[in-house]
């Protein structure tokens, strides 16, 4: 199948290096300590953060740092065919773990000993790139909850189809079976915290694809900063003196 037309357009009309439209909002869940909605084209994800709070299971309590937990769920209505999804299937457990590890890398857990931070992410609409959308939403929610972090983590995916590197794959491109590289970076520290690929790629093309994904992450980071800045300003001005 042809994923990039001779004119250089993708199936949804984007250029190979073009990202889908992104939109983010903080404060979506009223009772949570921090929450956010993140949209990437038709992918829509909601995240809620509770904590730092008292550890629920005393045996898991850590005396020198906070316990970070993450739960990823996919709504029944999020995909084209409505499916019953058993809780704790392989895919969601794996993604929960990935998100937890990525977020733990940037949270300054040593500042909140003997406490726990719960991150809940739910996919409302799935159109490829849910993993990166979840990470971006979780970052926003953590920042909204006022949890100290060394940097904002942002994530973006890129693929390689029809011998062209493509940024931010949607569902159709994702299910083509080509390589799909998900990258998570700390933009300020310029470090990589997440790198996933379930296929083989020659090393020189891989470098190009990863470079593309990193650029995407940086663009998302800029947008997230703007959203947070706007939110902080608004809160401060309304509070008054």
């Amino acid at each position, binding site marked *: 199948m042809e994923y990039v037309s001779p004119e250089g357009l993708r199936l949804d009309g984007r250029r190979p290096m073009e990202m889908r439209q992104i939109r983010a909002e903080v404060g979506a869940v009223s009772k949570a300590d921090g929450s956010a909605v993140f949209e990437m084209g038709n992918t829509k994800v909601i995240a809620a953060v509770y904590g730092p*709070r008292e550890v629920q299971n005393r045996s898991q309590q850590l005396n020198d740092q906070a316990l970070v937990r993450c739960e990823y769920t996919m709504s029944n209505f999020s995909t084209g065919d409505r499916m019953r999804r058993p809780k704790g299937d392989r895919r969601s457990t794996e993604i929960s773990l990935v998100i937890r590890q990525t977020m733990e890398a940037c949270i300054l857990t040593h500042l909140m000993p003997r*406490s726990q931070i719960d991150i809940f992410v739910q996919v409302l609409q799935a159109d490829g790139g849910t993993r990166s959308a979840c990470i971006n939403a979780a970052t926003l929610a953590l920042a909204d*909850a006022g949890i100290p972090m*060394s940097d904002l983590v942002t994530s973006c995916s890129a693929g390689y189809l029809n011998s062209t590197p493509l940024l931010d794959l949607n569902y159709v491109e994702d299910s083509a079976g080509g390589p799909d590289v998900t990258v998570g970076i700390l*933009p300020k520290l310029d470090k990589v915290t997440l790198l996933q690929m379930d296929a083989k790629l020659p090393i020189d093309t891989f470098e190009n694809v990863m470079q593309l994904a990193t650029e995407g992450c940086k663009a998302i980071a800029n947008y997230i900063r703007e959203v947070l*800045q706007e*939110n*902080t300003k608004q809160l*401060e001005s309304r509070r*008054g003196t």
Partner: protein
Amino acid sequence: MRGPQLSLNQTQKLRLEAALEKLESFSSKANSVTVADTIPVNYEDGVLKGHGTSEIDGSVVATVCGVVERVNKLVYVRALRARYKPEIGDIIVGRVNEVAPKRWRLEINFSQDAVLMLSSMNLPDGIQRRRTAVDELNMRCIFEEGDVICAEVRGFQHDGSLHLQARSQKYGKLERGQMLTVPPYLVKRRKQHFHHLDQYGIDLILGCNGFIWVGEHVNTKDPTEEEQASKSEQEQVATKLNRNAASLEEQERTYTPLETRQNICRMANAARVLSTLGFSITVELLIEIVNLSISLKSDIREMLGSEFCVLVAEVEAERRSAKIKKK
């Protein structure tokens, strides 16, 4: 998305936007930062890094979203929407989570539960003495799970746990009223957190942790001398138990007048409106809003509606502009 989630009609929407815009124009150019923003500092003077900052490659970087504050050499970031951060001497309102040996565990919106030791609170009969094993067994007579309590922050123990104390008649169990939670950044630390509003016959406690108590006014009475009669230990405990049982019945009999109950609800709704709008919560402002609602003859439930919310925003914008003009 944060802010009032109300169904506003077109005019109300415009009025609210205008009022909020007005408020925004008053705010001084607050140097707000987000996570991983570099904070400009003058290195020649020497810098002390405070809360919410860290050092990356020799430059001071924020670790939370908030407002940069500078005190002499100290540079710190005041986080806005975060959980409560206790300071010694803070007056807080909390809810009992658990009765443990010699202590109660309280939920106070902090990253851990706070601890109130049996030994760091006055006994209800006001007698000063060692706490015995019998006292420990009768702890549920004082506070049970789910009770709302007012106490003071005593400090952090060596093991990092937060301890509270309630060594005065004004602290203790809160009854006949309602507790509401607001974001802690809206409550400012002040000299006075207990307020007795005589005109409404209610007590208002603005806990530093963002828990607000509105309840019927109670007289804090000093322990009477006669209670300290010389009795044997056993007898004292027995009488105490009886008295507790008696006082419980008594409390059930005590009746809160309808007017007071309405005042409690009005005051609580005023606090709710302020917290949805994100305005800082002070007694003066709360009283002003209650008076506004009374003067408008609006129902208590209408206070949570969109019209009243817009009105409060406009009044607040007006008030702040008047304040600036005075300067």
